[in-house]
């Protein structure tokens, strides 16, 4: 196995796993306790529209993804004041619209888009040095914000009404959280792909919550689990020549089932 690490792409893939697991575990913990998995799925799928637009107009698709994710986060923050039922429906619409726009833009663009599959399903073995630098910067932004806003995010995800009653601007804090989810989503696209991002965000915290006495602890366990799943999935994908994103999610689900039956 050591000869594996002489491959540059493998080293990059491992660093990417590490960076992805940190953001996914920390932000995913909020997603799970606040029960906004569906919202996060909407944000991640809407990025496809931005990626398509990037292809059509000839700019970096990842920038398109960032833009689309942020716009969706803003839209979600607006509609979250509505009744639960219509909120659910509206997010479903944004989700589907994002995907449809992506396909539409790609249809319109002249050229052939060979790595579109890697946006949908990810390919951690294709992570470049530039990608790593970008992931690193996004991680700093995400983790830095969480450190500063830890208590406020905790209050808003635990009991938004009380947080508002003591005078916190809960709408703004919630929007900030959605923006962090958007950033994290984009960061994970390279690793597991748009379609599977939501699994990497939600599965490790869904396991961790059962063994945690605090949100901090839940985040830490989630990061460690995410790291185990991505690295294990990575090796499976390398040796069995399978798509990396799918392998990582498969391992995560096995991990979830294992913890589920362990708990019983």
């Amino acid at each position: 196995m050591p000869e594996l690490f002489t491959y540059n792409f493998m080293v990059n893939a491992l660093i990417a796993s590490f960076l992805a697991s940190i953001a996914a575990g920390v932000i995913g913990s909020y997603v799970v306790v606040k029960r906004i998995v569906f919202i996060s799925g909407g944000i991640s799928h809407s990025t496809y529209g931005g990626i398509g637009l990037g292809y059509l107009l000839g700019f970096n698709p990842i920038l398109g993804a960032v833009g689309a994710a942020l716009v969706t986060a803003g839209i979600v923050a607006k509609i979250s004041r509505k009744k639960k039922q219509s909120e659910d429906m509206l997010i479903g619409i944004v989700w589907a619209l994002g995907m449809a726009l992506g396909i539409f833009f790609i249809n319109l663009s002249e050229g052939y888009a060979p790595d579109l599959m890697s946006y949908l399903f990810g390919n951690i073995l294709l992570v470049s040095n530039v990608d790593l630098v970008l992931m690193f910067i996004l991680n700093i932004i995400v983790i830095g914000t969480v450190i500063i806003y830890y208590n406020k995010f905790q209050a808003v995800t635990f009991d938004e009404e009380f947080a508002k009653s003591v005078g916190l601007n809960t709408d703004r804090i919630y929007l900030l959280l959605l923006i962090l989810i958007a950033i994290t989503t984009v960061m994970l696209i390279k690793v597991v792909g748009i379609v599977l991002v939501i699994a990497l965000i939600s599965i490790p915290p869904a396991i961790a919550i059962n063994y945690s006495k605090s949100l901090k602890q839940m985040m830490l366990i989630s990061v460690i689990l995410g790291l185990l799943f991505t690295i294990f999935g990575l090796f499976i994908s390398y040796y069995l020549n399978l798509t990396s994103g799918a392998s990582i999610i498969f391992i995560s689900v096995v991990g979830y089932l294992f913890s589920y039956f362990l708990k019983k």
Partner: protein
Amino acid sequence: MKAIEVKNLFFQYEDLPVLEDINFDVEEKDFVGIIGPNGGGKTTLIKILVGLLKPQRGTVNIFEKPVSAMNHHIGYVPQSFNFDSSFPISVIDVTKMGRLNQSKIFKNSAEDQLIAEECLKKVDMLTMKDKLIGNLSGGQKQRVLIARALTVKPKILILDEPTASIDSKAGLNFYELLHRLNEEMTIIMISHDIGVISQYVEKIACLNKKLVFHDSKEISREMLEQTYQCPVDLIAHGLPHRILDEHEHNH
């Protein structure tokens, strides 16, 4: 100074009017009980007072300023638990949330810890401070929420049926606690327990869409009948008959 001043307040959810032309003042250090039938609008009124809902018409002033400027002086104990029992958080960390209102840049977390422990002690929950909130019983959770409201160090304490699931011994201690707290703060409490209300409260407001404010704590049958629109059954539940009878002898 007036702690609370409500003028010509109207509120409706979508097209359901809930509060109509509400007017009342609460003096500093008053202890006001609000009674009224289910769906009468009590919780709605309180949510307006703590700034969770905005009225369509009318004004609410807290110490002569709009609610939004005074949130950090109000301690709020909600009627129901708005949180998920699976949330991994300890009793003490929940209690500390009342300290979030202190918008200091450098927070004194040691001080917050001390205040939170002090408040947990007041509601007899200090020994459980490191337990997960989700593992407490309903009454224990409710006590933690009271402690959380106290960590705000509020000028006005607003409680929405705080004793609904607290046992009678703890309930008694709790009313004694409120009585003591009342020396330094204004208290507004919703309760269906008219016996308790008439024993501890100084003033009574009856709310059923419209609000009738009584500057004394005497509960007369007419008051109740007006508020509850005479569902005698409802009255008989929460009300020890002798209180009514005593009143009738007085008249």
